[in-house]
């Protein structure tokens, strides 16, 4: 679903500030990233989040909802 955009004004962005989402340094990319994970049906989503946090060295991670069996 692509929406049309309308420009209200012209403006430029300073390349020294922030990052294009596809060019973030790895640690930022991970921190602001998300994974479309095919979760196996055995472990709980809580467990899976714990594994992902450990794997990626994250303090915080969550999940966007899984199936209630």
């Amino acid at each position: 679903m692509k929406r049309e955009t309308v420009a209200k004004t012209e403006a430029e962005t300073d390349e020294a500030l922030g990052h294009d989402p596809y060019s973030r340094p790895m640690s930022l990319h991970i921190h602001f990233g998300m994974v479309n994970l095919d979760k196996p049906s055995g472990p709980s989503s809580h467990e899976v989040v714990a594994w992902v946090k450990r794997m990626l060295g994250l303090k915080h991670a969550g999940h966007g909802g899984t199936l209630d069996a």
Partner: protein
Amino acid sequence: MLSGKEYVCLMQLHEDIAEQRIADTLAEFAGEIFQRPPLRASVKRAVRRRKIYSLDALEIDGRRVLFKVACQAGTYVRKVCSDIGEVLGCGAHMSELRRTRAGPFSEDRNLCSMYDLLNACDRWKVGKGEEELRAIIRPMEEAFEFIPKICIRDSAVDAICHGADLAVPGVVKLDQGIATNSSIVLMSLKAEAVALAKALMSTEQIVEQDHGIAAKTVRVIMPPGTYPSLWKKT
């Protein structure tokens, strides 16, 4: 359609039924239905209307019916199966379910397994390259694909990161069709997500006017200080 879901479901009928009758009954369920959430749901158990956008049989093998369904968020496919069983008169239950799409996330878009993630992660950690991990971990902005956006100028970004509402002069460009009170995302000119917000004006109003508050900031995403604070301090 914002948070529409798609599933593939295996349903077990409790008696033998002619294929044509099964297919006809499945077709009846496309459209608007009533549902009361099941006992084990963590949601208020009031009867509610849900939309089933499509429901198509994939395979019918005796009493086992494989179908795919596209529906509004909050539709219980398990209940749809038992209701189909009631209409057929024989009873039925859901035996397997796989969600194939949730909003912008679908099976054919960067779906990965735990193994894929672990392998890509290990490769990165031992210095064998980060391309795989970058392909698996998506920028969170991809989660907002279906949500209308307003792009704001650099000088407005840090104020938003501190929770300020968006004033019309901060708007550079915006999506068509934004309605007042709808959920939107405020983006930087580099397409970074800055904050989730609620539109206080429609697209037309924002384009026409040169002052006023265009949106109320609801949830800041970008850390303050990413862009310098350029608003006037008293």
